[in-house]
């Protein structure tokens, strides 16, 4: 005779085995230590942010770029690029800042700060370094963070 517990087992097991994967599967993390990595500072023309070890890649999840350096009437303009040591550009951002708020006819001001958390991220392949390059006349401060993940 098929008992109630058998039905329950069957129904429960169906749910167990049919559980859907999450919408965006995250990479596996088995770093054996805190997997978070970050770097910050004022951007010079070129700086190395971090290097992925031989067994792990780094996924950049957060990019914050704040910009200043304007003078009246004349905005500053900069380009920030994130380039792997393998030569791939994995991020590119154009920045401006200006303040002409004292202009009585056309008062205007603003900065193009970048504050973005990526759903997927910017992957830095195993063994490669991530370079942040800066060209232009703005002063740019950066905070870049991510985590170590299995390749």
């Amino acid at each position, binding site marked *: 005779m098929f*008992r109630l*517990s*058998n039905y*329950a*087992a*069957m*129904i*429960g*097991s*169906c*749910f*167990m085995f049919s*559980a*859907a*994967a*999450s*919408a*965006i*599967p995250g*990479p596996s993390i088995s770093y054996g230590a805190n997997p978070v990595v970050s770097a910050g500072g004022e951007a010079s023309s070129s700086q190395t942010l971090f290097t992925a070890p031989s067994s792990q*890649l780094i*996924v950049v999840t957060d*990019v914050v770029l704040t910009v200043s350096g304007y003078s009246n*009437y004349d*905005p500053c*303009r*900069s*380009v920030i*690029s994130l380039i792997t040591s393998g030569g*791939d*550009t*994995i*991020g*590119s*951002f*154009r*920045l*401006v*800042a*200006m303040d*002409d708020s004292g202009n009585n006819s*056309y*008062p*205007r001001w*603003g*900065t*193009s*700060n*970048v504050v*973005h*958390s*990526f*759903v*997927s*991220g*910017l*992957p830095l392949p195993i063994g490669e370094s991530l370079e942040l390059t800066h060209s232009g006349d703005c002063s740019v401060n950066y905070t870049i963070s991510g985590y170590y*993940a*299995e*390749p």
Partner: protein
Amino acid sequence: MLRLSKYAALVGSVALLGAPALAIPGPTVSYGANPVWSVGGDVGNAYAGGTASPSISVAGQDAVITDLVITHGRYDYYEFACFYLLELSTSSGTLAKYYVQAESGSWTSLAPFSISMRSGIRVPDGETLTLTATGEYSNNSSRCLATTIHYTLSGYYAEP
């Protein structure tokens, strides 16, 4: 005595009660490696049909775009505004269109255009993504011609 079927019922029920609710079932990922990708670059000549074709394709996989960060920067001390239409397309047609403003006056913003999408935009296997920028409006279009739009795209590979 607790029989095997009862254990199964118990385990199954726990799975049932503990299963997370998912609004959007995700695509299947079986890339055999970390499926995350990203690419950055620029679209020059942005007011006159400039294009870029970032290399994101991998054979046998769809590329799903989840993040799009568009920055722009031409600005001078005049009160000129440049509005652009940025289109993402493949040979199959348009995937997405966005209005992007590339200069600031008192009536616009310098803020980047950035979005994170829960499901994303699917670029089918075997198709090439193209970004095309065209001028939509300006009060002085000649001042917009030199504009370059910079992009950062991020996503993951999934089975078609």
